[in-house]
């Protein structure tokens, strides 16, 4: 990377991690992560539990000190500063509202700690509470609030401080499905309204896709890929990413040239060009079930990649049907729309499978 662009990147980044690692008693929780999160970006750190995403967030918050690397917030090195000296606030998992204080006192806490004048505190608290539509609940205690209301208070308590970056640790995990979907929408709207950087940690891929401008997928302490939701879904570069975001079939093969993969059965298919792997590498071709077409034997168009096999099982899902199609060298999952004009197949049927060349992604195995 060119040095000038790198320094420019750093200047515009709200949060910038360079070679950040965290060890807990010789266990590497976060392994040399490089990441730039832009100003006013809604960024999701996505990964399974124990992947290091929460530790990364806690390092940005100052609740953990990195073992190695540089951590900057708007160009200022903060790696070793305590949490109260950083321009960030956190919405904790399960909210961590102070049980011995009213809603208003919870929200006012940060301002009181910073010795903001009383009159200003009361206007800002009032604003923050109305921002999250909790007006009228000021005197309630946290245990008198529903999960969604507690979530809103936690947001107000953080946002009232006008942090440069808001950190959210699994903010919606504790809510039931319906409420979670509502809050997703509200959270997105809130972020647009206040216009600050949101960094949120989640294990829920749908939530990450629905909310964020960009997603970073982590596994085993490493940041595997960063990109927009579409990039992550359409062009994963790592098998783990392709598997974690959505479902996928993985076809073993070798990258023969920039745009050709030789599959394990000897068949050659055209693939979109990728940078993450080089010619000659063992790769996998990620093929999303809903991007595979299914039809009668010999019905595949001649200009696209195709495979023939036998339907092994069919699972009806309402809006779609999932077929498991056995080839002689592997089994492929296919998701076909369930509509009157789409042919329905049954176990034992011989079928052709095909897809457009640009429907697949080449990933590191």
């Amino acid at each position: 990377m060119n040095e000038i662009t790198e320094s420019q990147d750093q200047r515009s980044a709200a949060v910038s991690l360079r070679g950040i690692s965290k060890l807990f008693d010789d266990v590497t929780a976060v392994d040399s992560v490089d990441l730039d999160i832009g100003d006013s970006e809604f960024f999701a750190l996505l990964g399974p539990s124990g992947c290091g995403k929460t530790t990364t967030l806690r390092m940005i918050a100052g609740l953990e000190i990195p073992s190695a690397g540089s951590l900057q917030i708007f160009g200022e090195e903060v790696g070793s500063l305590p949490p109260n000296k950083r321009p960030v606030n956190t919405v904790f998992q399960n909210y961590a509202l102070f049980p011995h204080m009213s809603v208003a006192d919870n929200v006012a806490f940060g301002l009181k700690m910073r010795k903001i004048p009383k009159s200003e505190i009361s206007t800002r608290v009032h604003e923050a509470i109305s921002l999250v539509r909790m007006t009228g609940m000021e005197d309630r205690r946290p245990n008198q609030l529903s999960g969604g209301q507690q979530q809103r208070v936690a947001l107000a308590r953080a946002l009232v401080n006008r942090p440069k970056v808001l950190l959210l640790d699994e903010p919606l995990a504790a809510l039931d499905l319906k409420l979670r979907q509502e809050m997703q929408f509200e959270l997105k709207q809130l972020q647009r309204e206040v216009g600050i950087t949101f960094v949120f940690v989640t294990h829920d891929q749908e939530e990450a896709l629905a909310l964020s401008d960009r997603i970073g997928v982590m596994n085993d302490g490493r940041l595997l890929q960063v990109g927009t939701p579409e990039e992550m879904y359409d062009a994963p570069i790592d098998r783990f990413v392709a598997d974690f975001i959505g479902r996928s079939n993985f076809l073993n093969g070798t990258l023969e040239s920039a745009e050709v993969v030789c599959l394990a059965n000897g068949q050659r298919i055209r693939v979109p060009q990728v940078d993450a792997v080089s010619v000659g590498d063992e790769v996998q071709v990620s093929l999303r079930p809903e991007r595979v077409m299914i039809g009668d034997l010999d019905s595949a168009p001649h200009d696209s990649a195709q495979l023939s096999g036998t339907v092994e099982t069919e699972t009806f899902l309402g809006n779609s049907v999932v077929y498991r199609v056995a080839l002689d060298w592997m089994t492929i999952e296919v998701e076909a729309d369930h509509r009157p004009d789409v042919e329905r197949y049954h176990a034992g049927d011989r079928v052709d499978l095909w897809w457009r060349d640009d429907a697949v992604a080449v990933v590191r195995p």
Partner: protein
Amino acid sequence: MKLGAAELKREREERRRGFFLALPSFAYMVLFFALPLVIVLIYSFATRTSTGSTALSDWNFDAYRKLGEPIVRNVVVRSVVLAVITTVICLVVAYPFAWFCAHQRPTVRNVLLIAVMIPFWTNFLVRNYAWRILLSKGGPISTFTEAIGLGEVDILFTKTAVVIGLVYAYLPFMILPLYASIDRLDQRLVEAGRDLYGSGPQTFRRIILPLTMPGVIAGSILVFVPSMGAYVTPELLGGGKETMLGSYIVTQFLTARNWPVGASLSFVLMAVMLVSTVVYFRSGGRNL
């Protein structure tokens, strides 16, 4: 309807079984606790005869009136002061230790908590005599301070010695409830306090202390109450010069042979403790 009757019968049976199981401890408490207490109460209204015996007639409030006299008031004030000092020292010493314990790995924590309880394996009286040797002129502590040039320490039979002995005796009663409430404290609340610009001391005062107040209150009661009525420690380490309530009551019964006064003082002490404990718990309970 039939089912309802069977249900009622079952419930009644279970209640009766519970009662029978509790009967032995119930009988024990009535026989050795409630009954003697009633006797103490009766004696407090009795009359002391000129020969020093107690006449169970002419019921009156004389014994209670005597409690207002300066000599009793002095003993009460001294007891309260020493008990308060003891409680405060215990609190200040125990809190950091309990905090430290609660933040250790389970094995380390168990070892530390057992260590807190080890002194109980030795008889209380023996431990008080041990302190007498430690604190005496020419004892180990005095020898040490003399050796490093701080001069002789002669604190046996002083208020200081009594407080040292009381703190030593009741510190575990402060540590254990504090530990329990610190252990229960949600660490994320502390982190939230720090995240919301609270410095260490601010977070302690606004978040940690209020949320561990049940432990502070319970520990304070457990230290204050026995300190108020302490008998052995003030006798042995105070040398009888620093008379506290416990000693005074004993004197009334055994030396002065004024049973009504001893009984009335015991009773008032108990009643005051009971009322203040209830009030304390009530007010503490509401903050949570």
